[in-house]
């Protein structure tokens, strides 16, 4: 009834190809941005911003990265964590070499290192497909993890073997380090994520994004249409790893504040993969939904016994949340393999025709 595009005529292809061709969607997005940029920083508590919104956005960005590779270009990867690590360590090295250059620039630059590493480990994709490729990404995961531990240069030979975030300022406000307030860090992250999501959406709807989807859907046909698999696959690896790398740098510099190699282990990779599956492969919106779901659900589960006043061992809720997430993953794969994003779309279609369920084509 209210969600219907009747009467919204498009008179040019430009309008028809806009990211959000329907007015209600544009209004919705505007509201969300308003909440994200105004309401949350003004109203939310430090815990909500620091432990829910910031991780959620960092994971969203990583999920966007993985989704580009897996959901759009069809190359399953289990090495997301390691690529995030490359970004984080690169950013750390860059800030130690160039302490005076703005940290935001460094974060964006560190993604390029991650992209380069991604290309190297993407090379096997030219010969290897599907599950075999998924397993070779494990080689990237474990090899890079080992590098983070073994190459002392990466963490400046710290005794602690970990990378620590120095304090950096933007317009005289601390944006990294312990004294940077969650709200400031949040604003930095939310701006970056919004910007990078827009960039991803643009690339995905253009020539390059189409070539990835062609490779994904039918690589042979894509090649016969003139897509060079070398370019298409490696550019997908590079672009995806760039996002993962930036997410990794954000994770360390704007969220946790320090990191050991273990922060980027295989479980981290799997966590991002879950987000992509639950959110929906091949959907940017899904990245947000999946990240929110996987990150917030355990926190919510943890909060439930407290709200009910039950004394449950913290570990038990941890096990229970493991089980619930596992069951949900299976459930989604069975019921809706395209994830939350698809459910949302179905919901929208229902809304469009409501209250006349049979009036659509």
């Amino acid at each position, binding site marked *: 009834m209210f969600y219907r595009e009747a009467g919204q005529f498009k008179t040019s292809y430009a309008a028809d190809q806009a990211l959000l061709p329907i007015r209600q969607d544009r209004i919705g997005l505007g509201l969300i941005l308003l909440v994200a940029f105004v309401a949350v920083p003004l109203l*939310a508590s430090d815990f909500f911003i620091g432990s829910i919104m910031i991780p959620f956005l960092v994971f969203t960005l990583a999920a966007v990265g993985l989704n580009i590779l897996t959901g759009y270009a069809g190359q399953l990867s289990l090495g997301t964590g390691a690529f995030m690590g490359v970004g984080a360590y690169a950013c750390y090295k860059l800030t130690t070499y160039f302490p005076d250059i703005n940290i935001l620039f460094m974060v964006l630059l560190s993604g390029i290192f991650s992209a380069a590493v991604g290309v190297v480990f993407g090379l096997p994709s030219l010969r290897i497909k599907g599950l075999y490729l998924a397993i070779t990404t494990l080689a990237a995961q474990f090899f890079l993890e080992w590098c983070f531990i073994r190459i002392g240069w990466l963490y400046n030979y710290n005794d602690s073997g970990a990378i620590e975030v120095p304090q950096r300022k933007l317009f005289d406000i601390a944006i990294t380090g312990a004294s940077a307030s969650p709200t400031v860090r949040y604003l930095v992250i939310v701006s970056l994520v919004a910007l990078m999501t827009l960039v991803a959406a643009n690339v995905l709807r253009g020539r390059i994004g189409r070539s990835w989807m062609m490779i994904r859907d039918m690589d042979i046909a894509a090649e016969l249409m003139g897509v060079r698999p070398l370019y298409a696959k490696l550019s997908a690896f590079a672009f995806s790893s760039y996002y993962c790398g930036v997410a990794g740098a954000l994770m360390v510099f704007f969220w946790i504040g320090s990191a050991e190699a273990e922060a980027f282990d295989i479980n981290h990779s799997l966590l991002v993969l879950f987000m992509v599956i639950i959110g929906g492969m091949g959907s940017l919106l899904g990245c947000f939904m999946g990240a929110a779901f996987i990150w917030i659900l355990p926190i919510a589960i943890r909060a439930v016994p407290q709200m009910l006043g039950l004394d449950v061992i913290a570990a038990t*809720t941890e096990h229970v949340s493991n089980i619930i997430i596992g069951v949900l993953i299976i459930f989604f794969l069975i019921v809706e393999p395209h994830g939350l994003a698809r459910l949302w779309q179905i919901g929208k279609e229902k809304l469009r025709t409501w209250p006349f369920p049979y009036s659509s084509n």
Partner: protein
Amino acid sequence: MTTRTLITLAAGMLAASSWIPVAQAQDSLYVPSMTYRTGPFAGGGTPFADGYADYFNMLNERDGGINGVRIVVDECETAYNAQKGVECYEATKDKGALAYSPLSTGITLALVPKAPVDEIPIFSMGYGLSAAAAGDKFPWTFVYPASYWSQLSSIIKYIDENGGVEGQKIGFIYLDAAYGKEPIPLLDQLAETMGFEVAKFPVGVKEMQNQSSQWLNVRKERPDWMIMWGWGAMNPTAIKEAAKIRFPLDRFIGNWWAGSNNDLNAVGEAGKGYLAANFSGIGQDFPALQDVLTHVVKKGMSKVASEDDVGNVLYNRGLFNAVILAEGIRVAQDMTGKKIITGADMRDGLEGINLTEARLTELGLPGFTGEVKGSCEDHEGGGSIFIQQWNGSNWEKISDLIPPMSDVVRPMLEEAAEAYVSDKPNWQAQTCG
């Protein structure tokens, strides 16, 4: 109802619940407990968490808290994961938390810079940053009763007293992570000054239960002694492998995280003779532990699986952690004259701690550990450890307290602290005396 509505609702609820300022009842002392009862290291985390909680509960039951104020212990599961650890911290820091014991090097490193900002001290008991022993550089971090470096120096001292280290080859097998690598700089330094040779054997976190290569290398290198910086499943595997290559176990010394009952129960009789460092008493034969049994465990208020678990190495370690915090609270109460203290008061209390043998006896823990006396500069206290040996079914204390080689360790600690602080222009240090 669409999914987004659901998510929005859920988020809204969460937001609402976390937006409402926590009405902290001002009649109790809030002590968060970061635990890891899950994950690959759960074997170590569980008894520690039990000992920690049981001691505070015992104080509540027996004495009605500390100076009449009850203690609230709030567990938060970290699964040894830094992200979850930080989340636990953020979730509890505004509830009036007095001190954090992060129980993982990764989480400690993440929290150390936050402590001065939020004014809540970090008590990483014998783990985390060794450099934090330098209290003038790390006002908010404590590593009582000893840092890793002090411990290593004591172990080397023990070796020296039992046959000498000069001209010997000492093997160092360690978990290939920040934790395991930390003592290496000191080990290299001591090797130079004391004239022994070092062979290093890293064990990857994913290879903890697959150590045959490392031990083949040990067989190749033929060290005279072995020192282990291990954790979790790495320990029993290492001891079994050592036995397999017939390495004399009474020349194999684990650090204080490689010498728990869990570790050796998995090895059993085959582990007889294995040595480990420790700083907390073994067994239930302390009045305080008897009180824990009577007031908490026998009343069914503990999470331990059986009464026998009370008194095992890691249980007592967790309990000792609680003892120091409780003592810190007492000192802070005395210093400020307040019943309800803040994190900043707690910091002063921890710094003013003085656990002498007499005080330990008062607490019902005679001979439980060495003296722990803090000061503005010294955040590691005494630094003494003792060596224990596995007799096939339990641990036995076989040495007196071994103080660290402060003359070597202290300058290095200070140097490390200086290095840590040097690239942090706005670091909050304190000037002592």
